[in-house]
């Protein structure tokens, strides 16, 4: 997550929204904070995620939620904190609210994705030169890395793409969620996550060493080697199967 400075102490904010009477959960009073959702202030539980806070405030999310667990990148959010000039980025589903947080979700992040035929690409720098020439404009400012909610070394994987080091692009971009927060901050207008996907696909298709066992198994299946076993199993009744199943050995 983006490293953040502790926000300086601030006077208790006066919320113009009606303050809900005491909120309790299992008889324990819930600590509340004031946040500004798209500019409007709301009292929400202090321990809520941004997504939870938006819903608590009464919004029905349509855009801006997918997996709700930090995998899909649907919930990119930008926010500021009181007394702090910085703009922060985070995932609404995994970032907790803070007192005075001023936040907005990004419903969609425009990006281009050139179409290509993976079978016709070479697994080297030429693929990036043809499809993503703009990466060569990277000014190495590291803004993308700072924006990444997954704490990935985003600039480094773009630099690796520039060098044609596909394994490194794959490795460093592996956990990328395509949330787009890097892309909206990049002065060189790069769409990092699509570059990462290309790098990973090139690695998987061309550079990952092929498994000899897998090739062998595919030949065996083609030769119908397991036909007899299958027929036998499929003809068994429930009791026969049960017996076989519970007596099977384990690796």
């Amino acid at each position, binding site marked *: 997550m983006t490293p953040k400075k502790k926000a300086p102490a601030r006077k208790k904010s006066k919320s113009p929204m009606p303050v809900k009477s005491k909120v309790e959960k299992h008889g324990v009073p819930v600590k509340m904070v004031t946040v500004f959702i798209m500019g409007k202030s709301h009292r929400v539980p202090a321990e809520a995620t941004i997504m939870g806070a938006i819903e608590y405030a009464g919004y*029905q999310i349509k855009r801006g939620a997918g*997996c709700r667990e930090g995998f*899909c990148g649907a919930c990119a959010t930008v926010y500021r904190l009181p007394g702090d000039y910085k703009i922060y980025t985070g995932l609404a589903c995994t970032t907790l609210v803070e007192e005075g947080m001023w936040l907005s979700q990004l419903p969609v992040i425009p990006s281009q994705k050139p179409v290509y035929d993976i079978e016709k690409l070479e697994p080297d720098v030429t693929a990036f030169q043809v499809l993503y020439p703009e990466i060569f404009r990277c000014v190495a400012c590291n803004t993308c890395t700072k924006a990444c909610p997954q704490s990935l070394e985003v600039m480094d994987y773009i630099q690796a793409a520039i060098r044609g080091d596909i394994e490194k692009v794959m490795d460093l971009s592996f956990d990328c969620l395509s949330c787009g927060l890097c892309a909206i901050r990049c002065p060189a207008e790069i769409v990092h996550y699509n570059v990462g996907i290309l790098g990973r696909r090139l690695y998987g298709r061309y550079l*990952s060493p092929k498994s000899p066992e897998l090739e062998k198994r595919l030949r065996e*299946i083609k030769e119908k080697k397991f036909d007899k076993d*299958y027929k036998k199993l499929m003809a068994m009744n429930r009791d026969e199967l049960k017996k076989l199943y519970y007596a099977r050995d384990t690796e």
Partner: protein
Amino acid sequence: MYPAYMKGSLDLVEQTRPKRLEIQKSGKPVYPPMTAEERENVLQRFHPDYKKEARRVIHIGPNKGESITTEVADMLEAHSRIEPELFDLTQPDYETDILIIGAGGAGCAAAIIAMQKGAKSIISTKLRLGDANSMMSQGGMQAAVTPQDPPSRHYLDVIGGGHFDNKPDLVRALTEDGPDVVKWLEDLGVVWDKNPDHTMYVLHGGGTSRKRMHSCRDYTGAIILRTLMDEVRNHSDKITILEFMPTVDLILDHKGRCAGGVLYNLETEEYFTVKAKATIITTGGYGRLHIRGFDTTNHYGATGDGLIMAYRAGAKLLYMDSVQYHPTGASFPEQIAGFLITEKIRGAGGQPVNKHGELFVFPREPRDVESAAFIRECLERHNGTQTPSGRWGIWLDSPLIEIIQGAGYLAKNFPAMVRQFIRYQIDITKEPMLVYPSLHYQNGGIEINAKSETNIPGLYVAGEASGGVHGRNRLMGNSVLDYNVFGRRAGKHAAEYSKHVTLGKLSLEHITAYENELKKARIKTDRIAPVLLPSYTPEDVRKRQLTAHYEGTLR
């Protein structure tokens, strides 16, 4: 950070660790696996499905008279969102060869294969392309590729795990196509984990008798789905993607063949019709119905829509009485309650232990058995740990993995998991996780055959929405395999079928007929289905929304 009162119990977990490590190293099962009778006993007494209120009889439709999951019966006995007479079906808004409903793994795989077979398709999806359960699978995908693991052994594991209720031809398709799916995905660019000798890196999962769990670190689903999505987007000439445009009902022709669907634009609130020669339902599961009030691991759009539209059109459902609760959903911290902790944690040596730090169950029983054993340990034996908000939990000893597999193993192989907890100041390399069963998977679904066909001509189903592959209990790693195997099969057979079918007059009469059936059965309800999205609007806010109109749960 764990609350101070848990310290005593955490200390006990630490104290018993060396002993448990020793048992683990001996190579024998760390706890005796249950016999068939013991499994039956714990399921009967503690699995949520076996509670009386968990099921009820459905009064209308193809499965009339059957006892199915209560929440599903409620959704099936509900009104359609549309009024058939408002649609002019002679002028469809879109026309295509294949309508694919849902953009998870099954939908994308089907679109790619259909495209390669020369068919054009439209993908209707509720959220964005890829906002799906498929994006979230961490653990991996089963496929039998090692010499000691013939696909027929995989078959036996699947059938046993499913309590012998699986449809045999589907299990054969699943297990025999497995190795080819590994290869197909790699050729598309999926980065599988490999051993130094280039063989596939495989682990155990619950209910496996051979190591056959393939993975892409712990972003398996994300890596596979993003590859499939990227390939779908590479063919925009043949595959049209309609995002935030869920399908709400199917269209048939006068001969009862499936002929497309009615789509709802979530944002502009318009309805559109799609005429398609064949239709593939890949809408995934129903975790967001929060069955029995359980937290869920599922994505935001998992509301079982496919079941509802197919059922209304006359498709048969199979095993809709069985719900999968994943044994290890997070129980603490509150903000991530229900979040999935992959079974691979147990596959890699993580042991579930009670508040005394003692083992009480074999860590890799089938999911339903393992879940029931966790519930028994908490509710009957009171050996669980309770969170400040009153949730129960079992310790999942993750630090043990770092000892067994070497320091740094968790960070390398489970980065998503480490990240998830460190946000709440819990370092899972040093402290265990607190877990409890979470609503995870729809075991049953729309009945299919090995060609992914249903009893309605022209209607295909693949992935979690389908029923029969997993019997009454799916094993980990078999549904990622499922959506690939049957997504591909659905794409292939729908494309072939679409080449020779000539549709007749389009009709929504089945909606009217279903409505009449509701009336005849004297079912009075204001429920509308599919619900499309769950609503988490608090009660007091709803009370103030004086002019808001809720359709299903969606405002």
